[in-house]
């Protein structure tokens, strides 16, 4: 059943000039399954209110019926699920035809919410109740399940589709946040000075909360006409970050705005009075009532009572009255003396028949049968701001409006480092220290009268433009308001509570007082313990009153407590806007489509994709990998190794440079030769390896690991900048393609394609030649990584495809196969070559990796050398050894542990079954005692079974390196 329409508290009024709705465009929608109609220009809340729907939601904790409070995104009373989207704010979300709207956080619908019983139980639940109960190990699990079912607001649809939204970078000289009178004036002033201006406002239109004001309207028209002002309504400034970087969220996208200067014309947020049942539907802020009335022509009620504590209350009453709404009474918290600043308005109100009661306060609102407010008990206020409950009077009404004060919307200003101080006369925090390039104007700055707000905006706009390099401006401040727009304690105690301070979290005065009593008596601790201000509206309507309660309890001023830290987001932001399109760039070698054409099965390698193996019909993965290995061992194989980092270093001191960055000696490398290089960090840990080739006296070419290529190159650039040697580095990783063409037949197949003599004498193992292969200028490196006669062929990326096709064609009838990363892993392990990062970890040094053969300790200096001396003295903590498993059966997997005497004695770093060798082989990092023992060892396998293995020397395959040196080759 849908909520009752019994009360018909609100209703749509006749057309009026300036209304925002378009009555020619009716929009149908459903709420809780029932059909309703609104107009284009309505928000969801205004449309429902106009249809007389009494309450729109249930509260977070007690499931009390709730309706419009601020109508301005300063509370989260009206959170709805709209077309499956949870937690949509009805107050500010434009109505669209066909919307299907449900209340959130109910159990069985809005009207019959089973959880409303919590409102009755609630009296037994003190603040911190959750911390005090159900925590025994026995009961917590049950209770948690129940609790988690009750908490949370909207329901996420697990089937919602991801929609990529665009994101944009934006730039302007001056960003003005808030298009009220001061913001509009600031934008105009900045534009007049020559600045490019962006003016944003979360509302649907410019003007802020100011209601129809002719001079302001003229300024707004000017703003729209200005070519240098970009006006962006319905755009929230969600966060202010460093260096004037502001997140702007509209209904399409996130714009990351970089401004040279920012004007905060963010205004003030009207604060509720706190009294019993101040959350009943029909109790709302005066600004909410005025906005409903003037924009959407929704009558807030027929018999209205105003709770007042400032001039704005009387102005609101007059505005309501002018539109035919009857105000029965004005309950003013202030004495007649204190209210003199509204003297003229008071007299006008009185003349219209409104009863004005000074030094009175609301004591409790009364709910009618439909749950909405139907009356108010009020009474005289004593000097301690307490209502004498023996002198109560009752007045009936169908709406209760509150106009008792404001809080500065200083959150964005605080986020970018602005400081505030409490102004006692205004009873408001005002900007104190502003970061460079930021300016504040208008009511947030303590300037309240509309002409003054416009003047203050002009001042701030001109200053901002000047900061951005346009025009000059003086800093003659606009005087702050001399009246008191905010009451110092609009909070009325009640023994039965339900006087809500925080509507998001259902927190009452006593909840805060109890927390303070328990010692949570700083603003930060109070916030965390009571959760005041931690709900979706982030304290916008609760923080100030909570501070006042804490200040009263401690006998100090709110200024001595200070505001708690304000953090982004100002309003919550859907993740889709933050995520944007989610760009994901993948790196592909120039041979990518060649791999795809022959059945490559891809695997990620850093941000690259590489063929893991090539699938062929009739073969499974294992068979394909084995066949690829066989091709290399018996005929020839071709692998794309283009992902290796490829770097050139030129210059008279290039050799010296390499001698410093590599652990091995390289300066003495002969031109036309290559050498394995091991790179360490300053602590002596292995960070990279590769092959270094000497192209010329002053030119070297070397490779790095795939994963390390970017970081290694960047660090080498840094070292080069630091050392200032006479050399220069060139990163050709992406510009050069590379393949490894390996196998006993490789030379025979390559020779006809190649313009240099490949014979052993002319081009020995570890040599390098510049050559022409298949008509392409290439670098050929005789390498032995896979343990066969083989050549790495490096060509410009643009020619890679030709090279690949030529090689494939040449080997087609001779058993050539392209092989992938998996086969290469097998081949290299058969050779016992380590993979940095797999067989070594973040603390492995060359001693432990058995790689001291690649280290030139006698060199004058290399990175890691000094540490290595210390490590040598310390002795290895582990050693990399070859292992062999002869038994059949399930193998251990990489990272399974070696166990000796019940203790961890090492781990397997690489393991697989070698078809070539007919046994399982691997590498393991083991404790030194075990490495020395050379005996049997035990590995704990997948199911916990112990698998016998033994330590063996490496390489496992062709230990004399005869094949790669081609000694036995034909």
């Amino acid at each position, binding site marked *: 059943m849908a909520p009752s329409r019994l009360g018909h508290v609100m209703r749509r009024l006749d057309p009026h000039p300036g209304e925002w709705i378009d009555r020619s465009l009716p929009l149908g929608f459903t709420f809780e399954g029932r059909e309703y109609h609104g107009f284009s220009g309505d928000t969801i809340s205004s449309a429902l209110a106009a249809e007389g729907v009494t309450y729109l939601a249930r509260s977070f904790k007690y499931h009390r019926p709730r309706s419009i409070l601020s109508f301005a995104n300063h509370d989260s009373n009206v959170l709805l699920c709209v077309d499956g989207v949870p937690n949509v704010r009805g107050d500010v979300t434009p109505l669209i035809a066909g919307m299907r709207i449900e209340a959130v956080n109910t159990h069985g619908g809005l009207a019959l919410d089973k959880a409303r019983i919590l409102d009755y139980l609630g009296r037994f639940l003190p603040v911190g109740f959750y911390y005090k109960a159900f925590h025994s190990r026995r009961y917590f699990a049950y209770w948690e399940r129940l609790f988690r079912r009750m*908490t949370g607001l909207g329901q996420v649809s697990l089937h919602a589709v991801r929609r990529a939204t665009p994101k944009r970078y934006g730039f302007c000289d001056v960003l003005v946040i808030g298009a009220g009178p001061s913001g509009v004036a600031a934008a105009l002033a900045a534009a007049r000075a020559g600045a490019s201006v962006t003016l944003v406002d979360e509302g649907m239109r410019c003007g802020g909360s100011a209601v129809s004001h002719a001079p302001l309207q003229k300024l707004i028209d000017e703003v729209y006409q200005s070519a240098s002002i970009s006006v962006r309504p319905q755009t929230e400034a969600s*966060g202010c970050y460093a260096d004037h970087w502001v997140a702007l969220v509209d209904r399409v996208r996130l714009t990351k705005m970089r401004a040279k200067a920012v004007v905060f014309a963010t205004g003030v947020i009207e604060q509720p009075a706190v009294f019993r049942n101040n959350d009943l539907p029909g109790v709302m802020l005066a600004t909410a009532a005025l906005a409903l009335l003037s924009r959407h022509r929704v009558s807030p009620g027929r018999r209205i009572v105003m709770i007042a504590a400032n001039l704005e209350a009387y102005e609101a009453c007059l505005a309501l009255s002018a539109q035919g709404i009857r105000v029965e009474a004005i309950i003013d918290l202030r004495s007649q003396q204190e209210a003199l600043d509204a003297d003229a308005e008071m007299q006008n109100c009185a003349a219209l028949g409104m009863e004005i009661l000074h030094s009175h306060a609301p004591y409790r609102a009364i709910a009618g049968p439909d749950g909405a407010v139907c009356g108010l008990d009020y009474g005289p206020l004593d000097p301690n701001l307490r209502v004498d409950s023996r002198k109560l009077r009752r007045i009936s009404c169908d709406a209760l409006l509150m106009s008792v004060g404001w809080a500065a919307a200083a959150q964005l200003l605080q986020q970018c480092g602005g400081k505030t101080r409490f102004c006692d006369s205004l009873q408001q925090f005002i900007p104190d220290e502003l970061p460079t390039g930021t300016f504040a104007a208008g009511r947030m700055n303590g300037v309240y009268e509309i002409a003054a707000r416009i003047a203050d905006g002009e001042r701030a706009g001109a200053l901002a433009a000047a900061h951005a390099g346009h025009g000059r401006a003086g800093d003659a401040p606009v005087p702050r308001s001399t009246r008191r727009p905010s009451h110092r304690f609009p909070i009325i105690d009640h023994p039965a509570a339900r006087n809500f301070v925080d509507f998001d979290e259902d927190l009452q005065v006593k909840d805060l007082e109890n927390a303070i009593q328990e010692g949570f008596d700083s603003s930060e601790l109070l916030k965390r313990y009571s959760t005041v201000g931690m709900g979706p509206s982030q304290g916008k309507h609760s923080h100030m009153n909570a501070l006042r309660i804490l200040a009263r309890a401690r006998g100090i001023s709110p200024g001595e407590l200070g505001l708690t830290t304000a953090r982004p987001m100002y309003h919550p932001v859907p993740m889709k806007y933050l995520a944007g399109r989610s760009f994901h760039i993948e790196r592909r070698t120039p041979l990518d489509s060649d791999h795809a054409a022959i059945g490559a099965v891809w695997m990620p390698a850093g941000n690259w994709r590489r063929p893991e193996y090539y699938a062929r019909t009739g073969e499974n993965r294992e068979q394909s990998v084995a066949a690829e290995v066989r091709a290399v061992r018996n005929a020839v194989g071709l692998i794309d190794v283009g992902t290796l980092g490829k770097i050139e270093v030129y210059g008279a001191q290039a050799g010296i440079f390499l001698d410093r960055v590599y652990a091995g000696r390289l300066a003495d490398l002969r031109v036309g030769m290559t050498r394995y290089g091991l790179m360490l960090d300053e602590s002596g840990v292995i960070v990279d390896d590769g092959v270094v080739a000497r192209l010329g006296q002053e030119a070297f070419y070397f490779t790095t690991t795939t994963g390390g290529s970017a970081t290694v190159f960047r660090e080498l650039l840094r070292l080069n900048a630091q050392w200032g040697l006479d050399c220069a580095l060139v990163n050709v990783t992406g510009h050069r393609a590379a393949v490894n063409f390996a196998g006993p037949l490789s030379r025979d197949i390559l020779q006809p394609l190649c313009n240099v003599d490949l014979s052993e004498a002319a081009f020995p193992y570890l040599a390098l030649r510049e050559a022409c292969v298949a008509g392409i200028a290439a670098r050929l490196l005789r390498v032995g990584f896979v343990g066969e006669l083989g050549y790495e062929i490096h060509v410009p990326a643009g020619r890679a495809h030709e090279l690949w096709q030529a090689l494939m064609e040449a080997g087609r009838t001779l058993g050539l196969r392209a092989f992938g990363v998996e086969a290469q892993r097998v081949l290299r392990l058969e050779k016992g070559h380590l993979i940095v990062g797999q067989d070594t970890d973040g603390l492995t040094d060359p001693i432990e990796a058995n790689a001291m053969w690649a280290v030139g300790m006698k060199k004058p200096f290399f990175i890691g050398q000094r540490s290595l001396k210390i490590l040598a003295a310390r002795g290895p903590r582990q050693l990399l050894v070859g292992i062999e498993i002869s038994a059949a059966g399930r193998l251990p997997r990489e990272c399974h542990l070696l166990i000796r005497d019940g203790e961890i004695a090492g781990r397997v770093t690489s393991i697989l079954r070698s078809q070539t060798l007919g046994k399982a082989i691997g590498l393991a990092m083991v404790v030194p005692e075990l490495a020395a023992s050379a005996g049997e060892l035990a590995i704990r396998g997948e199911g*916990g079974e112990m698998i016998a293995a033994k330590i063996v020397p490496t390489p496992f395959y062709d230990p004399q390196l005869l094949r790669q040196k081609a000694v036995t080759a034909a």
Partner: protein
Amino acid sequence: MFTRHDSLRPGYEAVIIGAGGHGLAAAYYLARDHGMRDVAVLEKGYLGGGNTGRNTTIIRSNYLTPEGVRFYDESLRLWQDLATDFDLNLFYSTRGHFTLAHTDAAMRTMRWRAEVNKHLGVRSEAVDAAFVKRMIPMIDLTCAGHAPIVGALFHEPGAIARHDAVAWGYGRGADRRGVQIHQQTEVTGIRVKAGRVVGVETTRGFVATPKVLCAVAGSTPRILDMLGLRTPIYVHPLQAMVSEPVKRWLDPIIVSGSLHVYVSQSARGELVMGASLDPYELHQTRSTLDFAESLSSHMLDMFPFLGEVKINRQWAGLADMSPDFAPIMGITAVEGFFLDAGWGTWGFKATPVCGKTMSHTLATGRNHPLIEGFSIDRFARYQLTGEKGAAAVGH
């Protein structure tokens, strides 16, 4: 819950700098287990206002090194009984913890951790992608197609807790046993005579004491500078963010190193999310938009249906990182000065065991056996602890 102490006494048997979880836990156990009640906890801000109140509350013991596993496992044991000890609901909620692997290399590390864990009696398993899908059916295993999940380390005891409440529980417990907690009291200097601590200078005057425990996370280098002690600690911000509350849909804690995401759903229904460390040194807890952008993007890669879920708030803490991603604890070269630092991104889960071991160390003057691998002199000896392999994304 705690009383306000208006008077700072001229001297105490021990002074603890920092009223975060670690400092308060040490005070609690000093008073409860070692009979040391003449103790002051000095806090420059407010109780639990540092990393204790800023972390993402994940508790686990699935570390890589035996030292780490034993230490955190003891912490997990202590966690179980804290609520009863404190008579305070900490919302200690065992959820199960998944560290997702998107590459074979990551999977190897998961297996390594699982094997070490199991060897030491800690419930961890390397699981495949199908298991992940069974346990978290709503996850997109392909992660939008660019980081397919190949498996995970599943750590059944992984839990979350209400972070602030831990500080309150220890604080109240210590307070009731006579420990004085002084907020808004900043230590500005440490007085040393002949290599021994004799007291601390504070914004409220000098306080004499023979024993000082420094438990100040991101402020550690500043305190050590006061003593002229050198430190390997470097401080980077660690950011986090939280969504609006939504109804329960996610039970386990999910961590992905490749996507730089960790996420859990709190008892209130909020998604509590974090990523990796900020890339440069900073001693300020500002938030950045790039963080919220990239984390949201990666969240949607895993859980594409969350696009409309709103981010409510972001914040940051200051992580005191160590070179081997293991903590730095125990006695120092200055007699009477004890260190509890280097917690980086993983300190919350260690709160109880730090309290236990540091109170022991403070009371006896000797390092507790569980923290012997964590002493500050290990760097000079090149005896690093080696959590680095597993802790690329810690927490």
